[in-house]
């Protein structure tokens, strides 16, 4: 009873939101729009009611790649399945290219699904069909003629680089090859949207990279809008334009990948991001770290680079303008899309005058600086003759 009331008010709410989009903006309409979407599984067989998603607002712009990241059980799977009607929302509205699909019945959804491809973590290929016949399946289902199937599947095999595996069965293919078949199959009906359900989670890092590159190519060359879910931040970093972080069925943070990854606002996001963007002090230095300066100590600073200043030669500028020796202890410079970012841990002279000048100079450059503590200056490097170095190399 209460659920029904809540549903109707939510749908009204969602409807106004969708309807409020001005007509001339239609062309710019997002490929996928979720407005106030919630999903609750009714209680049954003694199991309590489970609330999987709450008030999800999400828009995937046409031709872009949006990644949803979150820990397992956060509601990612449910979210992605709402977009092709494998799950139905209990509240809110869903629109594809501006067309409301919330109220579609099963046969309406079947037609809709032919324009939405989906790939899966465990590939879900038919073991009884060859690569060719697996890719042909969605075309058979759509009633495409035998000759047309032959032409299209041949092209798709070429697109995913599996022309020579045409007549192989899935059991004869590697994980990466299976996922390529999965991708070709998902693209067979020339969909405008591709859903990726943890598509690289069962693959090794190298294969993951090549599959992600393939997805990116498909996005750029075919203009397919991609919605993917993952629990791996490298996937987001590698190919996504936008990211949404989901936890306990709620989107806690969303935006362009660069912004979210370099300046995470939420603790969960920060935890995900940690491994790929931040740098830790090596253990032996961490052990030697003190909180107060002492004679001849060096100050340990973490400098975060993001955006325009990431490309500035900061360290050399400090050395030349301030005449200070800056020693790099640890660091990582990386890029998201075309934008560089990174962080360095450096040791700078720890006396008050030098440290003040260093901090001021970094501040002027607009860099984020964090003081980690103080360490003793390292003993001078033992002198080496050039001959020794040569023999080392040999």
């Amino acid at each position: 009873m209460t659920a029904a009331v809540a549903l109707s008010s939510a749908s009204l709410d969602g409807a106004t939101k969708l309807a409020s989009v001005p007509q001339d903006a239609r062309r710019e309409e997002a490929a996928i729009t979720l407005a106030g979407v919630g999903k609750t599984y009714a209680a049954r067989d003694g199991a309590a009611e489970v609330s999987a998603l709450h008030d999800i607002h999400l828009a995937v712009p046409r031709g872009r790649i949006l990644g949803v990241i979150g820990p397992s059980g956060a509601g990612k799977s449910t979210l992605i399945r709402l977009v092709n009607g494998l799950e139905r929302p209990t509240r809110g509205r869903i629109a594809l290219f501006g067309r409301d699909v919330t109220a579609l019945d099963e046969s309406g959804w079947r037609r809709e699904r032919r324009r939405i491809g989906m790939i899966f973590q465990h590939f879900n290929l038919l073991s009884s069909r060859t690569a060719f016949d697996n890719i042909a399946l969605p075309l058979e289902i759509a009633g495409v003629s035998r000759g047309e199937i032959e032409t299209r599947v041949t092209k798709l095999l070429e697109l995913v680089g599996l022309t020579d595996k045409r007549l192989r069965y899935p059991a004869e293919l590697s994980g990466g090859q299976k996922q390529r078949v999965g991708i070709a199959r998902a693209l067979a009906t020339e969909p405008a949207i591709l859903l990726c359900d943890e598509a690289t989670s069962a693959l090794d890092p190298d294969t993951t990279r090549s599959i992600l590159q393939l997805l990116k190519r498909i996005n750029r060359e075919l203009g397919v809008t991609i919605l993917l879910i993952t629990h791996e931040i490298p996937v987001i970093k590698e190919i996504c334009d936008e990211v949404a972080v989901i936890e306990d069925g709620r989107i806690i943070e969303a935006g362009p990948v660069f912004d979210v990854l370099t300046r995470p606002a939420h603790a969960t996001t920060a935890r995900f991001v940690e491994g790929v963007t931040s740098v830790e002090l090596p253990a032996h230095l961490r052990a030697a770290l003190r909180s107060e300066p002492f004679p001849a100590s060096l100050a340990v600073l973490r400098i975060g680079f993001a955006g325009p200043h990431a490309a500035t030669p900061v360290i050399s500028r400090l050395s030349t303008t301030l005449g200070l020796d800056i020693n790099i202890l640890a660091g990582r410079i990386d890029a998201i899309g075309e934008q560089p970012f990174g962080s360095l841990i450096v040791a700078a002279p720890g006396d008050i005058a030098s440290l003040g000048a260093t901090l001021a100079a970094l501040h002027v450059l607009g860099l984020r600086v964090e003081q980690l503590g103080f360490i003793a200056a390292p003993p001078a490097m033992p002198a080496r003759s050039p001959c020794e170095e040569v023999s080392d190399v040999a």
Partner: protein
Amino acid sequence: MSPELIRIIIEATIDTLHMVLVAGGLGTLFGLPLGVFLATSKRDELFPAPALNTVLGVVVNITRSTPFIILVVAIVPFTRLIAGTSIGTAAAIVPLTVAATPFIARIVEGAIREVDQGLVEAARAMGATPLQIVRKVLVPEALPAIVLGLTLAAVSLLGFSAMVGAVGGGGLGDLGIRYGYQRFMPEVMAIVVAVLVILVQSVQTFGDALARRLNKRLRHA
């Protein structure tokens, strides 16, 4: 051994094969759709009809738990209705089919339930109808297991067909009882058993080979 006896043995073998093939064929004809339905009609499945699923499940269980020899006698009126008589090879096919159908249905149900649900989901995501999912995904993927199950059913039917001899069904079982047992001709009994062993062995070998051929899961690159 007299030529007469050899002729009788050959005839009995043909009768047995006739009963097993026809009953097996009819049992598959009815059992396959029944098994598919049993495997897909629970709540939230492709053809949700939980009440009918339960009723059919009970009917299948009742048939399967009735000892075959009792089933043969119990359905005599039904046999007469279908075959026009309750004696002979043609009449024996009726109870054999009645016994084979639920047996095969359960085998098919089990084989279909073993198919990875991810494949069903993938097919739904392609926009497949429930019938397309059955035809293009469930049955082809379950086929190796179904073939092995049908082999098992054929072997069981050979055993059952020997029992219908007891109620005038003809075939090898009938021959064994009448000549080997009642007329004290142990050599006939031995031949009957030998022929049955050869038949079972052939059916099993053929079924295994076919299932292996159909199973593309164990190949390696």
